[in-house]
């Protein structure tokens, strides 16, 4: 009788231990499940941020083209559009002793250093005449993946030109 009850007790204990192990396994699985669920969850969409960036970039080109530069002490004012147009075709304009390409480049670099550089954007900006790059202002994008891409075409007396800005 004693032997039989001892055996029963041992079997009961073994069952309890198995149950304990099972509970531990279930808990580990649950924890792993939660961790994986949270780590594999897709990042929240960046619609708002990218919309703000797109808004900023869409105005950038036209605003640069219409801004002016004082080209002489007498107060001769030239628009960036004029300088870039001359840079692309004629090479006649002198602005503060500089040729049109250098003057335009200097002004745009100054604008970029106080805007896109300050906002920590990585960007590529070029002034193109068809497929030919007339003025490579910044070539910071190394990857082909773009965050925003804005083209601002502008007409000159000689032909069309385009200001291209790509952020990445």
């Amino acid at each position, binding site marked *: 009788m004693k032997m039989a009850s001892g055996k029963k007790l041992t079997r009961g204990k073994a069952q309890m231990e198995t149950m304990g192990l099972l509970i531990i396994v279930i808990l580990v699985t649950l924890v792993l499940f939660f961790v994986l669920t949270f780590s594999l969850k897709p990042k929240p969409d960046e619609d708002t941020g990218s919309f703000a960036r797109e*808004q900023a970039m869409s105005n950038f080109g036209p605003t640069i083209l219409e801004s002016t530069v004082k080209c002489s002490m007498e*107060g001769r004012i030239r628009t960036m559009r004029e300088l870039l147009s001359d840079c692309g075709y004629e090479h006649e304009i002198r602005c503060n002793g500089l040729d049109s390409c250098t003057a335009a480049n200097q002004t745009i670099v100054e604008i970029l250093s106080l805007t896109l550089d300050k906002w920590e954007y990585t960007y590529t900006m070029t002034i193109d005449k068809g497929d030919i790059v007339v003025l490579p202002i910044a070539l910071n994008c190394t990857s082909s993946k773009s965050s925003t891409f804005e083209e601002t075409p502008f007409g000159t007396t000689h032909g069309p030109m385009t200001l291209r800005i790509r952020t990445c």
Partner: protein
Amino acid sequence: MAKAKKSKSGFPNKKGQMQNAETIIVIVIVTIMMLIGLVVVVKNRMREVKNNSEDISVQRAMEVAIVASNMNEIKCSEYTAMIKTCYDYHRLKAFSSVLSKNMHNSSLFYYYLLGNSKVEVKIITGTPENITLYNYNDSANKSSFPVNMPVMVMNSMTKESYFAVMEVRTHS
């Protein structure tokens, strides 16, 4: 307190002690796992809340920027057809002056349009200058994510056009 089981030799039962230790280890491991799970869940929730509040702040700033950039009080009269965002330098200065002095209860009027925010126009080319158009903050939050919008500021007297940035910050 239950006394520890003693073996026939009078020493405490080693098997019982082992089993007790086993139970304690299991409880410790389970508690650690639960804590790790809790930390992960809380961290994720906090990150989500932060992202959401930043998103809301940017959205509100975008709304204010759109309202501010479409105010006819400060727009250029000639160039609006050419560029959608051109502001008259003298109108900006006058607007800023009127609002800063709260003339004709103007702050209250614009509060309904722009709320708890700061709208600034930063002229970059020519002579750099910051013109604060509107600034009202009655919340504890002193800083927020800025929304920047490139705009053109034209001086109608000298016919110069400056590259400028409209910076909008909202406080909530």
